[in-house]
Every structure is written in C-alpha cells, then in structure tokens.
C-alpha cells in the first residue's frame, strides 16, 4: 500500500509539472495553451534522439530543453502575440495546431512506434524500511517540488514576480506602470514550456519510453489536474496532479489497468460535481496564482 502511494506520488509529480505549466499560461496570460503537451513530448523525444545520436544524456537533455525554449517562443509569436485582439478561441485553436505540428514533425523524425529509452541510471534504488524508491523517480519527485516551489517564490518575492502578477491581474494597468509586456510575456512562455519539457524528460527517464504522442494522455491528465485543483492556482495544480497520480496507481493495483481511466476520470467528475470551482478555486471569482 505505502509502496503504491509512493509510486502514485511519483507519477503524479509528472502531472504536476504539466498542470503547473498550463496554469502559468492560464493564470498569467488567460491563455489555454494547447501546445504544452507537445512541448512535453518534445522534451522526451528530442532527448531520446540526441542520446541515440551518441550524446551523453545530460547534454541530450539540455539540448532538448533549449530546443523547447525556441519552440515555446515560436508558439508565443504565432498564437498569443499574432492573434491578440481576436476572439479568445483563436489562439486556443492555433496552439492546438502547434501540438499537431510538433507531433507530426516528430512522427516524421522518429516514426510512430514507442521507442525504448535507454536506462541511463543503472539501477540505483533506495530502500527505506521496505519501501523501494527508484532513483530517477525520486529525483523527478524532488525536482518537481523544487521547481514549483521556486516558481512560486519568484512570483511572490521578486521584482519580476510582481510584474508577472500585475500582468495576471490587469495587463492594461501593467502597461501603464511601465511593465514591458513584450519582454515578460515571452519569458512566461519559456518558463511554462520548460516546465512541461522537464516533465517530458523526467517521464522518459522514469518510464523508459517515448513516442510522438506521449504528450496527449499526460496533457489530458495535466489539464484535468489543473481544473480539479482550481483553474489558475498553482497549489491547486499541485494537489490535482498528485491526486490523479495516486488515484491512477491505486486503481491499477486494485482493479487492473482496464479500469484506470474510468476510475481516474470518475473521481474527477465527482469532485467537480461536489466542488465546481475545483479544490482550491472559488466558484465566483477565479483566483489567480
């Protein structure tokens, strides 16, 4: 049981990264960025590709993350900025277009099969009183927590954080105060994209497989985690992500893998019926960050 809980939390930490990535975009820019699952996938697949080309894994991962920064900026340029002033659905649909574009680019590059990801951390496991903690999993859990705490700290305590929160509350006032939206908004896209991509890299190291479509399922769970946590609230996204991870692992354990999605999405549905604003959200006033 305790072991399942640990496994669930570790899987959940991946969802947390994707959910927080989506939350930054929604909470700050009011933009549901559908390309984020694509950036998650690029993180994993590009790392795999670089390792296959013979690069050491740290170099491979860093290259992949840099590539994702560029991709995130391209998305910003052609969705959010390009379509500013249009109906809110327009950037949403065009970001979906980027998801499909990224998937198909990778499809051409690596094919549609699941690719086995090499085990770079040869079996280093921790055993703590009967609990088995996989090394990479432990690293990803810790890294997720550290990243999210860091982001939250930057938002709360720094000059840039204040500017970002000002944009989240009222972009026009932010402009009047001299906040340079042309500079801050791309940074938000990069931060959000990097979180998702780090999630993808960690997923690859943990579960040892990548594919061009690996972002879809995780993306769906990430969106669910964000909504069930309360849209636009970072702590809600964390709670939602962990909850989904744990529910998923427990339902596999008790009911078998056929029932996973029924249980996971069933639980989410029930939660949303009970608390329509999400765990940390308010129904009337959407709380931001």
């Amino acid at each position: 049981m305790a072991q399942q809980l640990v496994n669930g939390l570790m899987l959940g930490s991946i969802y947390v990264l994707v959910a927080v990535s989506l939350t930054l975009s929604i909470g700050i820019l009011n933009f549901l960025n559908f390309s984020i699952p694509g950036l998650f996938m690029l993180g994993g697949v590009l790392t795999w590709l670089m390792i296959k080309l013979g690069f050491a894994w740290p170099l491979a991962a860093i290259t992949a993350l840099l590539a994702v920064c560029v991709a995130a900026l391209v998305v910003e340029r052609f969705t959010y900025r390009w379509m500013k002033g249009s109906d809110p659905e327009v950037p949403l649909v065009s970001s979906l277009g980027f998801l499909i574009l990224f998937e198909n680019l990778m499809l051409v590059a690596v094919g549609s099969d699941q690719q086995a990801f090499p085990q770079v951390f040869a079996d280093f496991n921790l055993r703590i009183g009967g609990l088995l903690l996989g090394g990479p999993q432990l690293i990803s859990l810790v890294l997720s927590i550290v990243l999210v705490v860091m982001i939250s700290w930057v938002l709360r305590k720094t000059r840039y954080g204040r500017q970002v929160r000002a944009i989240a509350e009222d972009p026009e006032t932010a402009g009047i105060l001299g906040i340079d939206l042309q500079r801050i908004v791309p940074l938000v896209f990069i931060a959000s994209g990097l979180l998702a991509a780090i999630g993808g890299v960690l997923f690859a190291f943990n579960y040892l497989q990548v594919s061009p479509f690996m972002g879809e399922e995780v993306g769906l769970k990430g969106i669910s985690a964000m909504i069930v946590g309360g849209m636009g609230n970072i702590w809600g996204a964390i709670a939602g992500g962990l909850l989904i991870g744990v529910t998923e692992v427990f339902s596999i354990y008790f009911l078998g893998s056929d029932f996973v999605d029924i249980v996971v999405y069933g639980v989410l549905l029930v939660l949303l019926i009970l608390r329509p604003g999400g765990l940390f959200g308010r129904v009337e006033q959407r709380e931001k960050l």
Partner: protein
Amino acid sequence: MLLELNDLSIRYGRVQAIEALNLTVGEGEIVTVLGSNGAGKSSLLRAILGITPVSAGRIAFDGANITRSATPQRIAGGIALVPEGRRILINQTIRENLLLGATARGAVGDLEPELAAIYDLFPNLAERRDMAASCLSGGEQQMLAIGRALLAKPRLMMLDEPSLGLSPKVVDQIFDLFKRLNADGLSILLVEQNTGKALSVADRGYVLERGRLAVSGSPQELRADERLMRAYLGGGAGGTGGAAPEHAIS
C-alpha cells in the same frame, strides 16, 4: 518646454478623439485640461504615455521626439500617469503596488527610503503597507495611485480625474499635495471635470470640446469665458447625436 504637443490627433476607427491639438507644459507648471465626458481627455494622457497610438502629430518631452517611443522608455524618461479610476492592483499589497511604480527605472537598489517618504506623505498607507490593496477606501486608493506614480521619479506627473468619486475633504487634501509637489519642482498635467478645483491650482488651462481645443488661457481668463461653460453643456444647444458619446472604460 518640458512637454510639447504639435498638431496631435488620435482616432479610434471613425471616432476622432483628439484633433490637431497643440499643448505645452513648461518646467514647473501646473497645466489643467478640462472638458466634459468624451472630450478626449483620457485619450490625450494615454497617448502622451504611449498606451494609445497617435494618428498624426508629434509629442516632444524635454526636447526629444518621443512620438514613437515605447511606454517603459517614456516612464523612465520622466513621465508618469495616475490613471482614471486609479487602477490599483487589489491582489497585491500596498507596498507591492508602490514598488510596481518603480518598474521602468529597472533594477535600482534600495527603494526603502523612497517608500518611507511616501508613507510619511500618506500615514494611512503606512499602517497597512503589507495588506492587500483591496482594503483601501477610494481616497486611500487615490493616494496609493499617486504614491505609485511618484515612485517612477517623474518630472511630469499626469493625473486623470483624480477628484472623481472622492469626498470634498479628500479632494482638498490631494490638491494641497499637488501644490506642494509642484513647489518641490514637479510639473503637473491635470485632467479634471472638477473645473473650479482644477483652476484653483493651475497656472494655465486648456478646454477641450469633443477633441478640439475650445479655449485656453490663465485660470482668470477661463473662469470668465463662456466657452468653458459651453464645453460642459456638450457643445451648445439641444444635445444632438454626438453630444452623448458612449463611455470609454479606459
């Protein structure tokens, strides 16, 4: 001249908000711009700050042409706006709101002495500095908006209807403050509908009527001029179609 507008025009599609306006603010002056709803006062201030684009004409600040400069550069150059409706960020603390005023100055070191000066000016804000700005009354919010603009270290402070919705006592208080800030060397461009109050502090005034200059001059001249009165009645008899413009929520 600190600020100089030459033939400035602003239009939103078919709506001409400001038409070929010439206006100056000298170093150390308090200049007021008067006009009724929809006269184009807010559009004017927002164009000077670079939030609203100009369709023709030229804006010069301290001798430099800033017509195409980005807003952060203009603020860094010494222009600050206290916007209509105050626009306080209610999800941030009072202190954070003040600090945001200094954004365009970049990574300046310690702002504590400047914050302390603002708290001296507005003791009401000092007590609640770490509380969310949503706890403030209208007058206190206006004070915060002024304090926030001061943190930009402006040479020209523009205020858009600062008296709106405030009690006469608070209005007196902030207009006294304008006088004091001006005595310390701050130039002020004051947009108001409260004509009497604005003319009582101003060195010169301009009256706008649907985007056009109706009359300008000293407070004495303007008080005596029937065109000031007329501008407030919406441009003469009868309230024709254009006399009731939809309200811009800036």
